[in-house]
């Protein structure tokens, strides 16, 4: 038994070296996957289309995001991303309590229209206590009140060619040069829990959380719920916006669907 045991020890040493070199391989061997023009990355990204199709198939009955009870609201909604936009236009509106704010609906619609905050608040409201999931991994439960997007889309009349809804926002990134924008498909746009929220936890929506209007798309991650929305545009494609990936974070490598 001596002879094989010795070779076993040798193999254990070799194995340990192998494992550690495998771990070191993680160091930077796969950093090329972070490059947006990598063909391997493009192949791996196809899995996100599969996720989108699979989830849409499973959700075809319009499944609702889980809603929570009042007692499960144990803290304020944690603000993330922009918390206090500083564009001139936004500061002017904010100084006047958003009285002059208008939400524009444009693009592939029959009757482009602008809504004041008072008009939005006078439409039937929906209140929902839902969980906000940041792509980073944390979650926060809060009560959102707003106007469902679906009746507004009916109001303006969506044209047949429209496939996506773009949300244009007041807040800008990269030293105030790149405006935040997001998009979703018409299935999410017409989902009953998709609301233009103007209230949070029984109060007016604070600036840190997106005043005067932020979108809630409850079956997606936080970056799919843009704050400080000023224009909703219906389009057949979002390739002309930003880097053409359908949103600010999507242009920076995040998946468009954001359902997981």
């Amino acid at each position, binding site marked *: 038994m001596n002879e094989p045991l010795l070779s076993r020890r040798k193999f254990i040493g070799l*194995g340990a070296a192998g494992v550690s070199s495998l771990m070191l391989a993680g160091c930077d061997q796969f950093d090329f996957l972070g490059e947006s023009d990598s063909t391997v990355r493009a192949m791996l990204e196809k899995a996100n289309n599969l996720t989108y199709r699979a989830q849409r198939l499973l*959700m075809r009955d319009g499944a609702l995001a*889980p809603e929570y009870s009042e007692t499960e609201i144990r803290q304020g909604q944690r603000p993330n991303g922009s918390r206090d936009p500083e564009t001139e236009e936004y500061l002017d509106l904010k100084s006047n309590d958003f009285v002059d704010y208008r939400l524009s609906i444009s693009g592939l619609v029959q009757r482009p229209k602008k809504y004041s905050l008072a008009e939005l608040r006078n439409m039937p409201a929906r209140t929902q206590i839902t969980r906000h999931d940041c792509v980073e991994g944390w*979650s*926060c439960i809060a009560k959102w009140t707003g106007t469902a997007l679906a009746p507004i889309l009916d109001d303006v009349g969506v044209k047949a060619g429209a496939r996506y809804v773009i949300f244009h926002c007041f807040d800008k990134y990269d030293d105030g040069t790149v405006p935040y924008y997001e998009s979703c498909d018409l299935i999410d746009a017409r989902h009953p829990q998709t609301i233009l929220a103007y209230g949070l936890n029984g109060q007016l929506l604070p600036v840190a959380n997106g005043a005067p209007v932020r979108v809630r798309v409850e079956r997606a991650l936080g970056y799919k719920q843009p704050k400080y929305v000023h224009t909703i545009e219906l389009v057949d494609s979002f390739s002309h916006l930003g880097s053409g990936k359908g949103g600010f974070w999507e242009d920076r490598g995040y998946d468009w669907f954001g*359902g*997981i």
Partner: protein
Amino acid sequence: MPALAQTVRPHAGPLVYRQSFLTRLMHWTWAVCLFFLLLSGLQIFNAHPTLYIGSESGFAYDNAVFRIGAVETPDGPRGHTRLFGHEFDTTGVLGMSGPAEQPRYRAFPSAVTIPSYIDLATGRVVHFFFAWLLVVTLLTWLIGSLADGHIRRDVLPTRKDLVKLPKDIVDHLRLRIHHGQSYNVLQKLAYCGVFFILFPLIVLTGLCMSPGMNAVMPWLLELFGGRQTARTLHFLAMLLLVLFFIVHIVMVLVAGPINELRSMITGWYRTSTEERGRP
């Protein structure tokens, strides 16, 4: 042939065909999947290196059970890890790592994340690709191995196996490895634990973190006690799979890496002579 083999290696018995093509193909696919899932998963974890119990993350209250970070001390910054209220200095590995003159403040060090630098978006791309590959190949293997009887014949322990459990534990502790056509009972229990507990647990808790899947299967959230508990269990399942991997590699080395590797590449496995006489 057996006679010749015996003159060369006194303990060598006949070669047996032990691993089907499906099992071998799936084994190596899973090895690649788990490698990428682990390293991209640690990248994702680093984006918010705290684990909680419940539906949400407590910011105004404390429901955290595990946290990796860095703290400022009189001696300068230190890597700091907290587990159930117990504090550990983990400088050099967790929370703070890299060269002393230019430390990096990140939960898991760059040596064990893909990419090596902080890039959550790419970590997610890699993670979801290999998650799909793992799930599809697991289901393929499960269906195939139920159909050809591999699971019933080779993986599930029989009552006879369980009776032999104490003896098998003693044999393992003494590194006395039997090379038979079939797995020993500890092996069967380990593989059952991975196939029927850890893999389903890590896949389902992964799905539980998807707001889309929460709408489709709200009962899954109930089952795992909320999204943040599911995230914690996902991490725990990862740790157990890493533990399995370490034991698996050690056992391969102890039992004879050439023979074990051959059986997982070609399917053919050299049994010990003592196995031949057995009914």
